[in-house]
């Protein structure tokens, strides 16, 4: 009884906060007003203020989290809608995702080694550019700390989305293909959500880049760790 009340409260609360955050984003339309950022911030403040543990929030939060699986499945829909365009741009997307995977793994390893962090942390950091379940699987197979891997995935997701406008300007990435590949390769599904705001095509390209990089990162990471550690 108590548990279902808590579940209802945290699901309802999350939905209300998300709806409010979405309205705010529609009016303000800035990158830092992205609903995932403002909602997470508001929920964090509430939980910390009232000393509610994360595990208590997740009694309800798990129900929303569970829909992340079918949500990823649903990304096949924009892919299907854009199928004719995608056939012509497969090679640039694949090459971009491959470069992205190599750059992400190698800079992660080298920078963390240079800063003096130990192996366990480095194993948790390297797969940060891919979607959470893949990153956790990669970290687990290396013997790293899986919840920490999820935290780095979040940093890459939110950070990448926040930095994207600046990066695109600095490197003159103004083609929807370059933007889609950049967002999908660096910031997985959060980048894809951002790309979908621009257009269905950019979102679909980002989806493909995200899927390719998930596969590439899982294959390349063990070898590159041997090479660079």
């Amino acid at each position, binding site marked *: 009884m108590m548990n279902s009340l808590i579940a209802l409260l945290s699901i309802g609360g*999350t*939905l209300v906060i*998300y709806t409010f955050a979405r309205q705010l984003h529609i009016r303000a339309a800035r990158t830092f007003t992205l*609903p*995932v950022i403002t909602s997470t911030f508001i*929920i964090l403040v509430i939980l910390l203020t009232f000393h509610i543990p*994360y595990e208590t929030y997740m009694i309800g*939060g*798990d129900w*929303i*989290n569970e829909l*992340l*699986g*079918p*949500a990823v*499945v*649903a990304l*096949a*829909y924009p*892919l*299907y809608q854009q199928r004719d365009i995608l056939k*012509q741009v497969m*090679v*640039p997307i694949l090459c971009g995702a491959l*470069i*992205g995977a190599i750059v*992400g793994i190698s800079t*992660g390893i080298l920078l963390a080694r240079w*800063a003096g*962090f130990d192996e366990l942390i480095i194993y948790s950091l390297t797969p940060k*550019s891919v979607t*959470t*379940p*893949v990153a956790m699987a*990669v970290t687990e197979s290396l013997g790293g700390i899986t*919840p*920490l891997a*999820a935290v*780095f995935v*979040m*940093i*890459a997701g939110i950070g990448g989305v926040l*930095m*994207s406008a600046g*990066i*695109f300007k*600095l490197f003159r*990435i*103004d*083609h929807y293909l*370059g*933007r889609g*590949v*950049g*967002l999908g*390769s660096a910031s997985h599904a959060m*980048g*894809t*959500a951002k790309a979908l705001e621009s257009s269905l095509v950019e979102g679909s390209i980002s989806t493909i880049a995200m899927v390719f990089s998930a*596969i590439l990162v899982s294959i390349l990471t063990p070898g590159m760790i041997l090479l660079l550690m």
Partner: protein
Amino acid sequence: MLKLIKIIMHIIILYGIYLIGNWIQVALNLFIPGSVIGMVLLFIVLMTNIIKVTWIEEGSKLIINHLTLFFIPATVGVMNYFELFKGNGFLLVLIALLSTALVMALSGVISQWLMRRKEVPHDE
């Protein structure tokens, strides 16, 4: 009301495909998560007309419109790791951000360059 039932049916189908994806992952001992396998699977059955796009369209549109909602509970989980980022752990955040920026810049620049080369005729 009819639309609501339609959307719920669509999401149940998506969830079913996700479960099949999970099952394939476990059965074949793959490192790719079930949700990604499910997405590839749905794409294949749509392309081959085994599933009609109208069976999943409304539900998919709704979910994709609100994609970021589903990240919120997992992202809130960062609260259990605040400790780690005190002191020099804060460097880890900088490293993750720098590495992410490099991935986005290089993958974007290369794919855009390849695309532009394809778009313009080769007689430049």
